[in-house]
C-alpha cells in the first residue's frame, strides 16, 4: 500500500490531505503490521477524511460503517435472511423425498446471509479500507463483536462456521472520546491522536481547500480561529468549519477580515449560544 511514511505523506497530499510525520508513521505502521488504526481527536479535525483520503490514494474500496447507540452485529456484521429461509422451508416442505434434516442444514448457507459492511469488507476482492466511524457512540457489546474481526480478520457465525477475510482490509476506527473504549479493543489497534493543527499547517490546508483565498487573508482567518480555540468554548471551531468560513467570506466578496464581517459570519464558527456570548464578551467587544 505504502512504501514508507514519506510515501504516505506524498500520496495523501495528492488527495489534498496534508499530514505530518506522526500521522504518516501511524498510517504506515498500521498498514505494515496489519493492525487497525484507532484515530481520536476533537470533532472536525479530519479523522473521517483521513480514511477517505487513504482509500482514494490507494485506489481502494471504501466501506464505511457509521456507529450509533444500539448498533448490533445484525447491522454491522451479518444477518440471516429470515424471510428467505422461511420461504425456502415452506417450498421444500412440499417437495417429496426431502427430509427436514437436509432442509435444516441448507438454510444456513451464505445464500441466506445479508452481508453487512464488515462482512462485505472481508469478502471484497479489491483492497478495502474499512472505516468504522465514531466507534465511541456504539455500545460496549458491539465492541466485543468487533474483537474477533479486528484481531483475526475473521467472523464466526455460530450456525455456519468461520468466514475468513479474502484479503486483510485496512481498518480505521475513529472516536471523539465520548466514552472510554475497552482495553481489549485498544490493545488490538495502533493509536493516533489528531489534534487541531498549528497555524502554518492550517493556513496550508485552507489555501489548498479554498484555492481562491489569498494567503494573507487565510493567515488572518486562521489566527482568529486559533484564538477562538483558546477560549475554552463548549465546541471549538473545527478545520471543516474554518474552511466553510473561508468559503462564506469569499462568497460575500470580502478580501479582508473586518469586525463587521466577523460579526455577520461568526455563526459559521460558533454553534452554541453560551459560546457566542463568550466570544462577544472576550473578542468581538
Amino acid at each position, binding site marked *: 500500500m505504502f512504501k514508507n511514511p514519506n510515501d504516505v505523506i506524498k500520496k495523501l497530499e495528492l488527495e489534498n490531505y496534508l499530514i505530518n510525520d506522526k500521522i504518516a*508513521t501511524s498510517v504506515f*505502521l498500521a498498514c505494515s503490521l496489519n493492525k487497525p488504526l484507532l484515530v481520536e481527536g476533537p470533532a472536525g479535525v479530519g479523522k473521517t477524511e483521513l480514511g477517505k483520503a487513504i482509500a482514494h490514494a490507494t485506489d481502494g474500496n471504501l466501506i464505511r460503517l457509521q456507529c450509533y447507540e*444500539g448498533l*448490533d452485529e445484525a447491522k454491522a456484521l451479518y444477518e440471516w435472511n429470515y424471510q428467505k429461509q422461511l420461504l425456502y422451508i415452506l417450498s421444500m416442505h412440499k417437495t417429496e423425498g426431502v427430509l427436514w434434516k437436509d432442509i435444516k442444514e441448507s438454510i444456513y448457507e451464505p445464500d441466506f446471509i445479508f452481508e453487512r459492511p464488515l462482512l462485505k469488507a472481508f469478502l471484497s476482492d479489491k483492497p478495502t479500507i474499512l472505516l468504522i466511524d465514531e466507534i465511541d457512540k456504539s455500545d460496549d457489546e458491539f465492541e466485543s463483536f468487533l474483537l474477533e474481526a479486528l484481531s483475526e480478520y475473521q467472523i464466526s457465525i455460530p450456525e455456519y462456521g468461520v468466514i475468513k477475510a479474502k484479503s486483510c482490509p485496512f481498518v480505521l476506527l475513529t472516536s471523539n472520546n465520548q466514552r472510554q473504549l475497552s482495553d481489549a479493543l485498544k490493545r488490538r*489497534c495502533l493509536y*493516533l491522536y489528531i489534534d487541531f493543527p498549528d497555524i502554518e499547517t492550517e493556513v496550508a490546508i485552507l489555501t489548498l481547500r479554498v484555492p481562491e483565498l489569498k494567503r494573507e487573508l487565510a493567515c488572518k482567518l486562521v*489566527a482568529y480561529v486559533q*484564538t477562538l480555540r483558546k477560549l475554552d468554548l463548549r465546541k471549538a471551531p473545527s478545520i471543516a468549519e474554518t474552511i466553510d468560513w473561508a468559503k462564506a467570506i469569499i462568497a460575500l466578496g470580502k478580501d479582508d477580515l473586518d469586525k463587521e464581517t466577523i460579526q455577520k459570519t461568526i455563526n459559521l464558527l460558533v454553534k452554541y449560544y453560551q459560546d457566542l456570548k463568550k466570544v462577544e464578551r472576550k473578542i468581538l467587544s
Partner: protein
Amino acid sequence: MKTKILEFVGLLRKAGLRITSGEVLDCLVAIKILGFEKETFFNCLQTTLVKETKDLKVFYKIFHLYFQDYLEIKEINKFLQKYPQFTGTEKAFSLNADRKGIARSGVGGPTPDLFYAITQGEFASLQKHIELLVQKQMDLSIDEAFYNVESITRNIQIELEWFMALSKLERTLECNLISLEYYQKLLVELDHLKEWIKTKIEGKIIEKYDSEALEKIAESENLYKKDFICLNPNQVQELEKRIRQLGAKLATKKSHRLRPAKNGRVDLRRVVKVALQCGGIPIKLKFVNKKVCKPQLVLLCDISGSVAQFSRFMLQLVYLSQAAFRDVKVFVFIDHLVNVTDLFKHMDIDDILAELPYLTKVSETGYSHFGNVFNEFYHGFIDILNDKTTIIILGDARNNWRPSGLSYLAEMKQRCYRLIWMNPQPREEWNSKDSIIGIYEKNCSKVFECRNMEQLEGLIKKIF
C-alpha cells in the same frame, strides 16, 4: 536497546499506562521496520504504546525524561568517571544569588525582560537566566521537588514576571500594535518556554536522584492512583474528562428487565400474535431487549477541606448521570445540611461547583458535624426515603469530637434500600483521632475507602 525500551515501558506502566506484552512486541516490530531515527523512533513508540488521549502527556514527559535527560546524564556520568579532570565544569554553573530572595531576581543581575525577549526573539540570555533560577529553586527544595514541579515552575514564572508579560502582550494586541496571528505565535512560544522550564526542573531532579527520581516522577503521573487531595489543577481537569465518560456510561446502564425493542432476543409471544395476521406464518420477528435501569438516589456530600475535591467529582458524576436515576436528591454539608437538588435541575454543573464555596448555610463553624447533619436530614427529609432508595454519604467521618447522631443514621438506614458510605480518608487512619467511621459502619450497608479515581471507578461499577 531492547532493554532500554523495556525499562521505558516499565516506567510508563508505573505512570498508569496499561501496556500489554503484545503491544511491546508491536513496538519492537515497528522500530525494526522504521529504525532509530529520533523523530520516527518517538512516533513508533507513541503509536504502539499509547492508547488513550490522557496518556499522551505522560508519554511525552517520560519519553523526554528517559531518552533525553536520563540517558544523557548517564552518558555524562560515564564520561566523568573516565576523565575526572572534567568534573569542575559544573562549577561554572554556580550562582550569584544571595539565596534570601531579596534581590529582584534572586540570582544576581537584572532579570531579562520576558516581554522584550519573546517579541524580539532574544531567547539566549533568557534561557541562561532561567537555568539559574531553576538551580536556585532546586537548591531550596530539591527533596520536595518530586511532587512540586508545578509549583516550582510557577515560582519561576513569577520571578520572570511572566503574567505581567502576558498582560502586556494582551494590551499590545488590544492597541493593534501586533497582529492576532503574531500574538498567537507568541502564546505558543510562551507555552513552549513553560514546558522547557518544567523539563529543566525534572532534569535537575534526575541528575540528583538518578533512576529513583524517574520512577517517582512516573508514579506521580499516575492520576488513577493519586489521592484526590493531591491532584493539581491540570490533573483535576484530566480526571473531569473521565468523570464525564463515567457519567455517560452510568446514564445508559442497562438492567436485567426486558422490554420490546428493535433487536435483541426473539419475543415468541409477540411473534405468534403477529403471525395470526399472516395465516399462522411467523413472517415478522419481534424482539425484546434490556431496559435502562433507574434507581433512586440520595447523595450527601461533605464539602469541607480535605473531602471537597472528591465531593466535586462525585457531584459532577451524579449531575452527568441524572438521566440514569428515577429520582436524585443532592445535599451538601459541613455542619449544616443544604438541599441543592434544585440547582442540579436548573444550573450548569460548572456554575453549581462555582457556587458551592458561597453556600454560607452549610457552615457555621467551618468544621464537619455529621451528628447535626443526620439530625437535620431526619427531621427535614426522612420522608423522601423509601425501600428503593440508595443513600450515598461522602465524608471522612471526622466529627470533631461532636455527638455522632447515630440514632438518626440508624433510622435512615431502616427507611432505605441501602446506605453506602464512601470515605476518602486512608483506611489506616480510620477510627483514629476524631474519626468515628467504626461507629457509623454498623449502620451502613457498606463502607468503602475511596481516595482515588481507580477506587471510585471500581465502586461505581459495584454499586450501580
